[in-house]
C-alpha cells in the first residue's frame, strides 16, 4: 500500500491502521483544520530550576530577569568595574543554563581557560616557560574556592600557582 516505495525500512510491528477512502480523508482533514496545533503547544516554559532554592522574599522578583539570557549583558559584566567574579559566579552557581554558557564564553574571551580535571579556570600570569604539543608549564592565576587551614576564612579568590603544568587534553 506504499506504492513505489518499498516499506523496507522496518519499524515497530504496529498493526497497520486501516486505509480510508478519499472522501473520509478530506472530512478528517477538514476537522483537523479546526484543531491545529497552536504555537504554545510547542513551547515549553523555560523553567529554570535553581539547584538550591532559597525562599525569595515576595518583594524580590520571583523569576529571573530575561536579560540574563542576553549575550550582550555578559559582555558588559566581563568589563570593568564588574570583572570576572560575576562571570565565575554564573559559571559555578547557574550550572546547566544558557547563562553558564554565556559566562564561559566571556571568560574564554578574557583568556581564561577551563581545566576539565580540576574544574577550574586558569589564566596565564606570564608567558609559559615551556610549551609543547601536549602541555604548557608556567605561572598561572586561577579562580578557586579557598578554605584557610584555620577554617575561619574561606571563599572564592584568585590565587597564583607557579610551576603548573597545564596538559592540553584537560583543556575544555
Amino acid at each position: 500500500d506504499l506504492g513505489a516505495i518499498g516499506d523496507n525500512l522496518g519499524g515497530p510491528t504496529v498493526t497497520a491502521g486501516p486505509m480510508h477512502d478519499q472522501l473520509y480523508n478530506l472530512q478528517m482533514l477538514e476537522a483537523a483544520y479546526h484543531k491545529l496545533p497552536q504555537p504554545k503547544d510547542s513551547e515549553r516554559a523555560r523553567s529554570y530550576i535553581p539547584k538550591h532554592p532559597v525562599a525569595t522574599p515576595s518583594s524580590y522578583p520571583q523569576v529571573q530577569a530575561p536579560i540574563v539570557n542576553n549575550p550582550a549583558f555578559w559582555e558588559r559584566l566581563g568589563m570593568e568595574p564588574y570583572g570576572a567574579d560575576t562571570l565565575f559566579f554564573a559559571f559555578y552557581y547557574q550550572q546547566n543554563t544558557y547563562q553558564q554558557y554565556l559566562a564561559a564564553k566571556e571568560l574564554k574571551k578574557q583568556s581564561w581557560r577551563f581545566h576539565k580535571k580540576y574544574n577550574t579556570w586558569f589564566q596565564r600570569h606570564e608567558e609559559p616557560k615551556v610549551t609543547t604539543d601536549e602541555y604548557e608549564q608556567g605561572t598561572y592565576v586561577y579562580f578557586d574556592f579557598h578554605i584557610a587551614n584555620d577554617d575561619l576564612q574561606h571563599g572564592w579568590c584568585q590565587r597564583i600557582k607557579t610551576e603548573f603544568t597545564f596538559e592540553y587534553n584537560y583543556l575544555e
Partner: protein
Amino acid sequence: LGIDLLTLGLNLNSSEDLHKTFSSPWSDEPAKGDPEFVVPQCYYTK
C-alpha cells in the same frame, strides 16, 4: 501559476540554515528559537 514563494516567511537568501529557526509549516514567523548551546559535561561540577 503557483505562489510567490518569497511570501511564505522564509528568508531563502539567508546564509544561515533555515531549519534552526523554522517554527512550523503553518507560520511565516521564524521561531524565536531556544538558544543553541551545549554545556560541556565537565562544566557540571559536583
